[in-house]
């Protein structure tokens, strides 16, 4: 006909493999096996879907020979990886939060087979939250409950506007539920008002050229009027005024590393206890009383917390206090709490770990059965104590994220990396096996931050010869079994 017909397809309801919000309404336009357009997604989503095939990728497995990474066949790389793992006295298998549950399932079998320590990235984000859940429990729900019912939304130590961009719009304050309306309009009015205010201020500044501003306003001993409006209210509590704090009806600034004190004070207040001090964590107790009152009076409250809370001083005990606060609030009203999970499938990794071993992360198979004691069996601690002998890293970049000493021990020993990216860790590795992008080039399952399982789609083919994590792990496992049988025969 004189022209090549362009092959264009639209795939709807794609799950986005970026953050724990796991938005599943992404619409992709595929043209000649490439994603050319992303609809409904946030900026992070767009860049993930659009850049996967433009970025520089290693397409062949690599093995370090004489200090240099050289291309080898997949069989050779798999064999080398299996040898390293089968021989190791105390190997670690780390990552799992950015791959599918199906891959993690095989990973656990491999860890058991080689008697290793298997851990997921929860160890460096919401691990402390899990430890506290094990002490206190958790009053939670799926995100839809919040959309339908919550009239008080609190984000604590979390900045969804930047880290989970569609969270507020899809699930919380700006979403439209059966029993609760979106607070989006109020926000628009607020933004307009604030723009107008800024304009007036700047006009005034121009008129009264360089006049010093008058005395700074005294902190008011009452909450802004927005807190007494009908409908949904949004509170942000953080150490700094984030983007999310700006759109909130009320922002409470907490002194750094004083979250625990603040949470405990709330707990005492909702039990109608008197507090000896006038101020907690930089906030006057009068304010706290009003906010505590709001919490008690709401119909359905939700507290989201992020790593700002889990990683500030007190760590797991901050979460312990937050979980206890929400539990106690249920004596007075309905209140729930949820960690803002970062990686798109860290919840899934925890889930698969738990059903196979009973424990959500930091599982040590060295004695032939699952043992769990974060601090002892967590990969970061194992590395810091210099105890591991070899490592397998799947879809994670610990060299870039771990404490320096831990990363040093990691690269000192044989290191295998399975990853679509040529990460910093991969560059230091002894065996690199490139894999397909889960959720783009490979299908599977991921769990949203509220434990709702969602299918990950394969929308385009991976580059030729590049396999999904699951398949690579299966091959390594089968190779390890072969080696072990051989070792047994030789020993006999």
């Amino acid at each position, binding site marked *: 006909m004189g022209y090549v017909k362009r092959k264009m397809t639209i795939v709807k309801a794609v799950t986005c493999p970026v953050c724990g919000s796991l938005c599943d309404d992404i619409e992709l336009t595929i043209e000649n096996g490439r994603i050319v357009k992303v609809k409904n997604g946030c900026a992070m989503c767009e860049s993930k879907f659009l850049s996967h095939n433009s970025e520089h990728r290693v397409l062949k497995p690599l093995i370090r020979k004489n200090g240099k990474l050289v291309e080898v066949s997949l069989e050779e790389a798999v064999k080398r990886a299996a040898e390293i793992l089968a021989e190791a006295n105390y190997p670690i298998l780390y990552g799992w939060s950015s791959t599918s549950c199906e891959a993690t399932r095989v990973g656990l079998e491999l860890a058991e087979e080689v008697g290793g320590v298997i851990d997921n990235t929860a160890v460096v984000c919401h691990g402390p939250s899990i430890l506290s859940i094990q002490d*206190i*429990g958790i009053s939670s*729900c799926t995100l839809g409950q919040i959309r339908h019912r919550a009239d008080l939304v609190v984000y604590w130590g979390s900045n969804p506007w930047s880290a989970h961009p569609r969270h507020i719009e899809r699930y919380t304050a700006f979403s439209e539920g059966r029993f609760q309306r979106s607070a989006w309009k109020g926000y628009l009015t607020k933004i307009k008002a604030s723009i107008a205010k800024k304009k007036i201020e700047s006009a005034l500044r121009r008129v009264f050229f360089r006049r010093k501003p008058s005395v700074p306003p005294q902190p008011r001993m009452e909450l802004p009027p927005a807190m007494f409006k009908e409908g949904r209210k949004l509170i942000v509590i953080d150490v700094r005024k984030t983007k999310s704090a700006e759109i909130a009806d009320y922002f409470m600034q907490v002194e750094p590393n004083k979250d625990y004190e603040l949470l405990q004070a709330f707990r005492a207040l909702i039990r109608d206890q008197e507090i000896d001090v006038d101020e907690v964590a930089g906030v006057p107790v009068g304010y706290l009383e009003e906010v505590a009152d709001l919490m008690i009076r709401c119909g359905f409250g939700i507290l989201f917390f992020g790593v700002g809370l889990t990683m500030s001083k007190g760590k797991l005990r901050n979460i312990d206090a937050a979980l206890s606060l929400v539990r106690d609030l249920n004596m007075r009203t309905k209140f729930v709490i949820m960690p803002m999970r970062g990686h798109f499938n860290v919840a899934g990794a925890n889930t698969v770990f738990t059903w196979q071993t009973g*424990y959500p992360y930091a599982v040590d*198979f060295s004695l032939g*059965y699952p043992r769990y004691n974060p601090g002892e069996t967590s990969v970061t601690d194992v590395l810091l104590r210099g105890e591991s002998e070899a490592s397998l890293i799947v879809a994670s970049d610990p060299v870039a994220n771990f404490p320096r000493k831990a990363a040093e021990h990691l690269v000192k020993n044989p290191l295998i990396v399975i990853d679509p990216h040529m990460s910093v860790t991969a560059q230091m590795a002894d065996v690199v096996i490139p894999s397909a992008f889960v959720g783009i080039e490979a299908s599977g399952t991921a769990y949203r931050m509220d434990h709702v399982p969602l299918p990950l789609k394969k929308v385009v083919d991976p580059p030729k010869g590049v396999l999904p994590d699951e398949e690579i792990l299966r091959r390594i496992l089968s190779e390890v079994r072969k080696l072990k049988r051989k070792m047994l025969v030789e020993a006999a």
Partner: protein
Amino acid sequence: MELLIKNGFVYDPINGVNGEKMDIATRDGKIVENVNESKALKIDASGMMVMPGGVDIHCHIAGSEVNTGRLLRPEDHFRDFERKTPKTRSGVGYSVPSTFTTGYRYARMGYTTIMNPSMPPLEAKHTHEELNDTPMLDKATYPLLGDWWFVLEYLKDGKIEECARYVAWMMTTTKGYAIKIVNPGGLEAWGSGRNVSSIDDQVPYFGTTSREIIRGLCKVNKLLNLPHTIHVHTNNLGKPGNYLTALDTMKCVEDLASGDKPAIHITHCQFCAFKGSDWRTIKSGAEEIAKYVNNHSHVTLDTGQVIFTDTTTMTADGPFQYGLHELSGNKWVNHDVETETSSGIVPFRYRRKSYVHAIQWSTGLELALLVRDPWKIFMTTDHPNGGPFIYYPRIIAWFMSRKARETTLKKINPRAESRSLLPSTDRELSFYEIAIMTRAGQANALGLKDKGHLGTGADADIAVYNINPETTDPSKKYRTVRRAFENAAYTIKGGKIVAKNGEILRHVKGATMWLDVQVSEPIKITEEMKRRFREYWTVEYENYPVTENYLEVSHPTTIKADV
């Protein structure tokens, strides 16, 4: 592959076989008339009992609440673990075992089929993923439908047939097996922190009542010709005086029964058989419930027996679990699921010396003994709510031996002992009756045609117990009975020997059974439906169904509905 089990005392109640000495032959996973004796693998079962593989109608072993229970309780697992062997995977146990360990422990007791009773439809994939990793057993799972908005809305408008079509869609979409109803109306109310307190309370915002939900879904069940009845966890569970609610629940579908066919299953009945007005005055309501059940044919029950041990309670009944947390002060998990249901978890210890717990223990046994027809009541612990399933053999001993009951009675709270009906109950169940209450009756109630019996064509799921019914008096030798049921001499799954004397010989995958319900006019997935979907849930319609690739071994049963 052929197998011949020779000379055992066979208990096969569905086929009326009561301890007769005979051979059982299997070929390619099915029971057959006979096999070539010289070629078949032979098991000498002389002096042993041969029964169909055990069937458990109600045990929480997979899915989101079970897994959260596992996550919640490292202290429950860390002393009870199973090492990896060349044949088996490792795992941890006690009250909420990991998936592999669950499969092995059931297989050791001669169980081959289990039903996972509470699956939030939105999280159905999770349940199925775990069932895939639960070996040795055939399994099925019940979606929670009693508080699903679609059901509430259609029932309010009296649109039974429309409701039936949606239930059919849901059953197939979630790969479920039966309609599960938990605290109907109460769970929706719990979404806003409330509850209902009788079957006639209004569900907030929805203008319907528990009674209408139970009756409506009972009608739907009938219209769809589902093999099992509606599976009901009553309102007011775990509250003193709730035996009246349980009776109301049974009564409210009395007129919907056709012939002698059961129309409702009241699950873990012990937990809704409390008489009395508060915890101090609580008494057993077993007598009243048994009386009703003995006089009506439309009800089946399972016991929900309590074991004196530390366990983890978990149900979809969010408000009940919260109450339990307030009562015990133990850690508490709540997980409400949008548009559908809720759930809760609280670790709990049943103590012999606690009046209430001892009454509960007694009530469970009273129910089992006072309901005359063993085809109407089945043995469960509502695992892990009354206690872990590994204690089934202990319950069998209590069922079969007055002496066993008396031994425990002596150790319980004296006030509870003096109020217990057990001392005045002489009934001791026979092995035949045990076979009904632990397999045949359960399979029958579930409408599992190929399970729970040893007739030609049945699945070759067989348990051989090393106990000689001719020489053992279970009434006296109840410990021997208990030990025999703890570790089957042989467990045969699909014609293969999978466990022998407590050792797992083979790791086999079981199948997941589900219903493909075919209605004459299936619901149409229009753009309007998708929009409604988006309004109700936070996931897209396309991502909701459990596609068949989520079932590693899929066993659908096609059901022709009357709508």
